[in-house]
């Protein structure tokens, strides 16, 4: 028996007007964690959808366990032992754990009736064998995301899957949960199963993967042994050019720059007496683990969530901020972590989104002044290089990076001087990331000030002038950029725990 579990060779896929996959390849061995990386739109998801039978390939070969196969549907792929762990978890939240694990192959009693007892029993055994303490009768929606993911893996295991495809499994997880997941992936590997692991978080690859396949623009770039390459190598393979991701050496803000925003003793749920100052022209990084209270702090500051107590000063003046509209009035703009829900109205056009926060200034009597709106939108599309075919393009048809820029444009048009970026590059590919970075630096040059919450260490170290570290709702440390290292940030981030 060969040690190759899956080989996808020269896969071709055409969509109307797009050559989505052009000679895509991947090869997975038994007992291997094989990372698949590439920018957004590089074709990873498309390739995996071909593997899962959702898309039909237009050319090339899939060789699975030594024989060439054609996949007709997700069910077909499942039956052959290819298990998908989707990015958006594919569970039925109202059903129980056992019902989810056995969906589509319910144990029956007497041909017509479901044998729920048997299903619960079998689910319990399966979960115990995975060292998971989850009651099979619990409803999925009452479980944490990490547990839900485990249930999804259990479901795939129950289908006797030999090949697991995990699409961005760690993005919703906390660090301890990620560790647990990795332990579990390693045990799958030890059991001789193959895992295809897709992730945007490059630093994870060295913790979990054996080999890495890189894709770009629908094409295969290459496969390397993880141990033999570094982050820079992978990034240059992904973008086809070398991007230097050097940390900032020293702060660009002079010590006597005026304080534009100050928070004193903010108290809110998961926010404990948080005080900090933001100076003009500064990028203030907020580091911490997921759940450290960074987003809660900013939402309390912005008036999006009620504060128990705390004072806010803008340009030295005490201000009353009790709702987002108060905050905006004082020139504070918030770019939420979840763009789709809070940042942009995806069903509206580029121009409508850009002026949304500042409509009263773009009217002629009771009517909208379309000319003015078009003019200002055009101006900002050029200024921050938003890639859109027209002003009237719906925002939902733009890429994540461009959607993010539209939120930025919205706050700039509203003349905000303080911008709060909450995970500005989450879910954005490497190329678009560096554009967002460039844009942030440009904003600083124009005299704006930025607070940036980020869970990506390299991003914090590269962009910030100063880094505030939070843990368990409180500030545990403040580091000037010249003193900041990943190690001392982590030390502060795990304090109080």
């Amino acid at each position: 028996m060969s040690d190759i579990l899956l080989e996808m060779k020269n896969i071709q896929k055409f969509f109307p007007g797009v050559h989505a996959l052009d000679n895509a390849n991947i090869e997975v061995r038994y007992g291997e964690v094989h990372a698949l990386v590439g920018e957004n739109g590089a074709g990873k998801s498309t390739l995996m959808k071909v593997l899962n039978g959702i898309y039909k390939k237009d050319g090339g070969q899939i060789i699975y366990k030594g024989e060439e196969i054609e996949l007709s549907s997700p069910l077909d792929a499942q039956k052959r032992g290819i298990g998908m762990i989707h990015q958006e978890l594919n569970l039925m939240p109202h059903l129980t754990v056992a019902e989810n694990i056995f969906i589509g192959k319910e144990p029956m009693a007497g041909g017509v009736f479901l044998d729920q007892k048997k299903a619960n029993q079998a689910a319990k055994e399966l979960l115990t064998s995975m060292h998971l303490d989850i009651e099979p009768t619990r409803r999925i929606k009452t479980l944490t995301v990490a547990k839900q993911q485990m249930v999804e893996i259990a479901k795939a295991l129950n289908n006797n899957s030999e090949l697991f495809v995990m699409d961005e499994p760690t993005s919703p997880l906390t660090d301890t949960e990620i560790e647990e997941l990795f332990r579990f992936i390693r045990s799958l590997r030890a059991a001789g199963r193959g895992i295809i692991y897709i992730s945007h978080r490059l630093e994870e690859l060295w913790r979990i993967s054996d080999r890495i396949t890189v894709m770009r623009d629908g094409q295969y770039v290459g496969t390397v042994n993880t141990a033999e390459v570094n982050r820079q190598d992978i990034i240059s393979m992904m973008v086809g050019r070398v991007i230097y991701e050097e940390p900032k050496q020293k702060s660009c803000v002079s010590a006597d720059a005026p304080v534009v925003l100050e928070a004193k003793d903010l108290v809110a749920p998961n926010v404990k007496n948080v005080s900090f100052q933001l100076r003009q022209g500064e990028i203030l990084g907020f580091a911490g683990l997921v759940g450290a209270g960074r987003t809660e702090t900013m939402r309390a500051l912005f008036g999006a969530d009620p504060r128990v107590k705390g004072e806010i000063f803008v340009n030295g003046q005490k201000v009353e901020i009790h709702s987002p509209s108060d905050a905006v009035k004082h020139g504070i703009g918030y770019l939420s972590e979840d763009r789709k829900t809070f940042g942009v109205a995806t069903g509206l056009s580029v121009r409508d989104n850009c002026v949304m926060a500042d409509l009263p200034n773009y009217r002629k009597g009771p009517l909208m002044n379309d000319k003015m709106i078009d003019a200002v939108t055009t101006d900002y599309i050029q200024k921050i290089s938003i890639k859109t075919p027209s002003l009237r393009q719906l925002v939902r048809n733009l890429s994540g990076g461009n959607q993010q820029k539209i939120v930025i444009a919205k706050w700039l048009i509203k003349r905000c001087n303080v911008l709060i970026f909450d995970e500005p590059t989450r879910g954005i590919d490497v190329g678009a990331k560096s554009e967002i970075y460039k844009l942030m630096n440009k904003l600083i040059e124009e005299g704006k000030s930025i607070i940036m919450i980020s869970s990506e260490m390299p991003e914090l170290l590269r962009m910030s002038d100063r880094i505030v570290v939070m843990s368990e709702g409180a500030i545990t440390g403040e580091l000037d950029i010249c003193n900041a290292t990943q190690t001392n940030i982590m030390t502060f981030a795990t304090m109080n725990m």
Partner: protein
Amino acid sequence: MTTKKFDLTKFLAPMVLVILYGFFSIFGNRFFSTDYLINILDGSYYIGFMAIGVTFVIITGGIDLSLGTTMMCAALIGGMAYNSWHWPMGWCLALVLVVATLIGLLNGIMIAFLNLPPFIATLGTQMMGMGFGAIVTKVQTMRYPTFGTADGWFKNFFYKTTTGFPVGAIWLAAFFLVAFVLLNKTRFGRYTYAIGSNTEAARLSGIKTKPWLAAVYTFCGFCCGAAGVFYAAVYTSIIPSTGNGQELLGIAGVVIGGTSMSGGTGTLVGTIIGVFVMSVLKQGLMSMGLQSHWQTFFTGLVVIGAVLLDQYRVKQGNKVIH
């Protein structure tokens, strides 16, 4: 970590029913009597059948606005077969079921395979059904046989026996049991919940969601047919171009019973309680000498109250336990 706490919210709907019954027993005029109990049962048959059917639909996250007119259309065509085409009674009743099931199938095909939003598809069949019934009967009222006439057995069989026993209640109870088993103990029921909870996840789990969804609407159509048979048995005359508005009673019953309009959850026990809450309200207000518009007013109030209650319940149920 299994904390089995006494869940008060589960018992709220039955409690409302008991409290209402108690209230009218005290303040109504001879409400606590066999006569009123039988009235409560009689008025709930056809609504009960519709509500059972539409419970499945609402659990899938859909809606069926054609319940009332499907029931009337089927009953009209069955009556036409009896009065004008002189079919035997048994065949006529079967025709009622078939017509309604076919309308349900039409809903199912449009929603599952042609991807029409359920609201639109069933709004269309609601109007089509109402029109079609009137067209077939040439806008004539259809009369079903009455007690003691040639085919009067049908009333004794479905409505009440010659001794006055409300046999319809037995039918409703039996049908409820069958539907209960269908929803809770078979694949059909499990997939009904699965589709309502997350259609895409169900599809990716290898479930053929489209035929199952079509089957749910077809089943609902069948239930409307059964409702038509009992409507005919209790009320005898079927008037063309009526029936719209009745679907709202069926849906109200489901909603009072705690089934969420967003799909994925819901119980038949809740539905049947919801149906009886409306029925008790109706008869109770009547026993206090209040007209039927009072009933409409209070049913509306109960629907809103029930949904507020449901929101609270969902909030409790969604708490993530670590």
